[in-house]
């Protein structure tokens, strides 16, 4: 079918993969890695993923920039666990409640690796998800109710207006003479005003949607096809392989601890 719009001309094949497949892949890897708390499975998964990123043409620079919050979060979690994590083995350092041991260090390493191994693929996959395509996928592939899927999609677009509203509310309070009082009280008032505004906007939007026949008796069609074919199966399969590799190497190495058990 020619002439059906796609979201801007893009080169990387991953972008055109159905968002539902991306969701499933991220979920598969995430669940597999949450089953154990060892560092071997996380390391194997992370290594596989990095190889795949390079192969799929994800730019290192872009990845590092976008992943910065995840890396920072992982580092913080790592330091915290190294200092306060469950102590075992030789003690390297103590200060007040902090106690760095072999056990806490290996737990910290496992946590850092795990956050990266779950976070990075999710990031790469979701960076390329267009909300409209996701809604199409949820509606057509997973057959979630259109009312829910499209309602959420339309509401998401309204969320973009929040920031403008918030700025206007802030300036308006200064203009009314009430901007000098405590920040907490002022922000609470502003947040309430924002809530009122967004409810009003929401109900107007709902009227506009109904006026276009939304929620009517007709069986809805979908203007954009959302397919689940070979590329999607392939992506989910890759996710399964990464998860399987991580789990089996960890079991072979004897480090697998199901749900943190001993």
């Amino acid at each position, binding site marked *: 079918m020619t002439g059906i*719009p796609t979201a801007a001309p893009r080169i990387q094949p991953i972008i055109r993969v159905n968002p539902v497949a991306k969701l499933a892949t991220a979920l598969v890897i995430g669940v597999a890695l949450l089953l154990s708390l060892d560092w071997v499975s996380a390391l194997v998964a992370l290594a596989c993923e990095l190889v795949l990123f390079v192969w799929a043409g994800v730019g290192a620079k872009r990845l590092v920039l976008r992943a910065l919050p995840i890396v920072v979060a992982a580092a913080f979690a790592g330091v915290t666990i190294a200092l306060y994590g469950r102590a075992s083995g030789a003690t390297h350092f103590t200060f007040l409640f902090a106690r760095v041991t072999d056990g806490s260090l290996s737990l910290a390493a496992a946590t850092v690796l795990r956050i990266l191994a779950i976070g990075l693929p999710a990031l790469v996959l979701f960076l390329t998800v267009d909300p409209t395509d996701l809604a199409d996928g949820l509606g057509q592939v997973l057959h979630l109710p259109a009312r829910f899927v499209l309602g959420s999609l*339309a509401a998401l*677009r309204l969320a973009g207006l929040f920031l403008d509203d918030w700025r206007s509310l802030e300036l308006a309070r200064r203009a009314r*003479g009430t901007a000098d009082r405590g920040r907490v009280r002022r922000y609470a008032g502003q947040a309430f005003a924002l809530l009122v505004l967004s409810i009003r906007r929401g109900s107007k939007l709902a009227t506009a949607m109904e006026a*276009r*026949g939304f929620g009517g008796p007709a069986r809805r069609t979908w*203007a954009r096809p959302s397919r689940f074919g070979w590329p999607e199966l392939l992506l989910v399969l890759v996710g399964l392989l990464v998860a399987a590799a991580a789990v089996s190497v960890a079991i072979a190495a004897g480090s697998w601890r199901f749900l943190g058990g001993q």
Partner: protein
Amino acid sequence: MLLLGASGAGKSTLLQALAGVLGGDDEGDSVGELLLDEARPERARGRAGLVLQDPDSQVILARVGDDVAFGCENLGIPRDEIWRRVRSSLEAVGLPLPLDFPTDRLSGGQKQRLALAGVLAMRPGLLLLDEPTANLDPSGVVEVRDAVARVTENRDSTLVVVEHRVDTWLDLVDRVIVLGAGEGVLADGSPEDVLAREGRRLAAEGVWVPRFPPTVAARTRAPGRTVLRAVDLGIARPGGPELQEGLDFDVRAGSALAITGPNGSGKSTLGLTLGGLLSPAAGSVDALPLAAGLASAPIRWKSRELVSRIGSVFQDPEHQFLAGTVREELSIGPRVLKLSSAEASDRIDETATRLRLMGLLAANPFTLSGGEKRRLSVATALITRPPLLVTDEPTFGQDSRTWAELVALFSELLDEGSSLVAITHDAAFVDAIADGELALDARTGARR
């Protein structure tokens, strides 16, 4: 067909009933029967297409093509047919954009034409327009009107439009119905007949009738000393690009300065900067004659110091409402100034009387009509008696009665020696009140 009537006559409610989006019995009462092609409108979704007033809350999806396709999808139209209709509808409303063009980059007039295209794609037999141009600048009004003219040319569908600016639609309609508040149909006939018979009465109720323009009183006072001076002023939103640079102008006591220019030229940003709400991006705003002991730049004044010196009225009154009733809303200014309660209640009575709000003191500001909201937002700025008032589109979307009241009020204030800066698209308002006009060009600097 053009549907006219005073505000509160139920014009919008009737349109929503025709469109079948009025809601069930739990949301209100209805009496009698309304049939569309011999069915209740709720059962005949898609036979009637409705375009509403606010451009922003009618955009449903993120891409132009998807937004137009939305209605067709809901009607269960097959995919190939949908895209054919999307293309022809966009062409019909004069919006030949790529189908993946982001809807948030459209202007107000374009958004309204997009909404019209979305409705047209559903092939309705009845096209309902509820003040579709009230929130648009003059060029947007023409865009939308012309688009409607094009799509109704062959008369294969019925058009019902609610609007209080008669001249916009007069050439397009062959029947006018006038509704009265609680009185039902007051007149029904050809535009010439109805306007000849009811024109004067409609004008008095706030409808803009070409032959009965609102009267404007003459101003009596000549401009006095300079109260605010912009020197080599550059303006920008926080973190945004510089919208204008090198602006030099004065605002004088007892005079009105109109700031005009196309959308995106930074008019509102300039208003906020003059009002002491945004920092200048370059140059300075000097309001030393108003400062009374404070620094010369209004942005350095505290919020409570600002209200008795410069009042700002925003384009959207709802952004400025803080309280649960009109009376509380009005009492905020006096409280900020720490006035005695006797003085405060005097000022509330005086301002509420002047702006015809006395009967509404117990009402919730958000439940007021458009004209009442505008009057209240002006009242909240006036109650602290600032010598300079900065207003953003004060007459936007107002009926002729509120328009005339605002012009009369501003004239009075100017004659009392206050100053006014008005950002406006409204040529009649500029003619009626402005002593000077600052016309901003889109991003290239300004001429006086």
